[in-house]
């Protein structure tokens, strides 16, 4: 796993259950990441592509806040390789928005390509995780998320 810069402001009240948005075009991987996150006591919403994710985050142009009106997303975890909008492009869109730019975004990929990792971290990704995801990866991630703000 590779971590980004430490200037993070993962705004979470202690005692809150983290709400994670997981984005992946693979059915199998969505099911897996959802279970891994639930096992780490997170509330999970899944999306199968970038545009759907943006919609859920209330970042689609002209769209009403779907999730974020009611339930604040504390973390976005997204696959890198997706048809249409890649995870990298999704990351950029989130970091460019005024509303969501503080939300940590984690990128997952089955390929450990240094240039890929670096460009994601440079664009503000909190972390880059190699697939297939394991319990230990997600535990580490959610511990970080819970420990901030203390």
């Amino acid at each position, binding site marked *: 796993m590779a971590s980004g810069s430490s200037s993070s402001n993962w705004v979470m009240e202690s005692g809150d259950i983290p709400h994670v948005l997981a984005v992946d075009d*693979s059915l199998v991987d969505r099911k*897996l990441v959802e279970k891994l996150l639930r096992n780490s006591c997170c509330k999970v919403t899944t999306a199968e592509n970038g545009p759907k994710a943006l919609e859920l985050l209330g970042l689609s142009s002209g769209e009403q806040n779907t999730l974020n009106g009611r339930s604040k997303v504390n973390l976005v975890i997204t696959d890198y*390789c997706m*048809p249409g909008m890649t995870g990298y492009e999704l990351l950029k869109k989130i970091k460019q928005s005024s509303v969501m730019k503080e939300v940590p975004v984690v990128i997952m990929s*089955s390929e450990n390509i240094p240039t890929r990792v670096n460009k994601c971290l440079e664009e503000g990704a909190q972390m880059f995780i190699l697939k*297939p995801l*394991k319990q230990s990866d997600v535990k580490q991630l959610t511990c970080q998320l819970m420990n901030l703000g203390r």
Partner: protein
Amino acid sequence: MEVGQMQRQWMGYMKSLFMEGFLDGQFLQLQQLQDENNPEFVVEVVSLFFEDSERILKDLSFAVDQQSVDFKKIDAHVHQFKGSSASIGAQRVKNACIAFRNFCEEQNIDACRSCLQQVKQEYIHVKNKLETLLRLEQQIVAAGGSIPMMEWN
């Protein structure tokens, strides 16, 4: 057959699947995720994998049969298959996909066609093995037993 015997049979079968390289440690991750809240988790994920794989194999067959082959498209499908097989620990399928991708890069259509057959075979193989394994698990649970926890170093 009594529960203890079934459990031993299951353990023996699991061990052989690992020894023969059909499954790797990632499958154990799935087993470990199954709990009382989600007692059917492994069956659900494996079923999704089967559905997904059949769709991908269909798309792949179509793509390699085209007059003018789109290697990028074929590679995209194989990449997907590699990902999902890796996620459930279907090691031999994953490895077959890795080899397949190399030939996509070389734009070698004959090798690609042969790889497709390989991948299909490995998929059918692991599908049968997993169905057998899950059937054994069902029998154990139906007889009031629990699935043993397996360690793999």
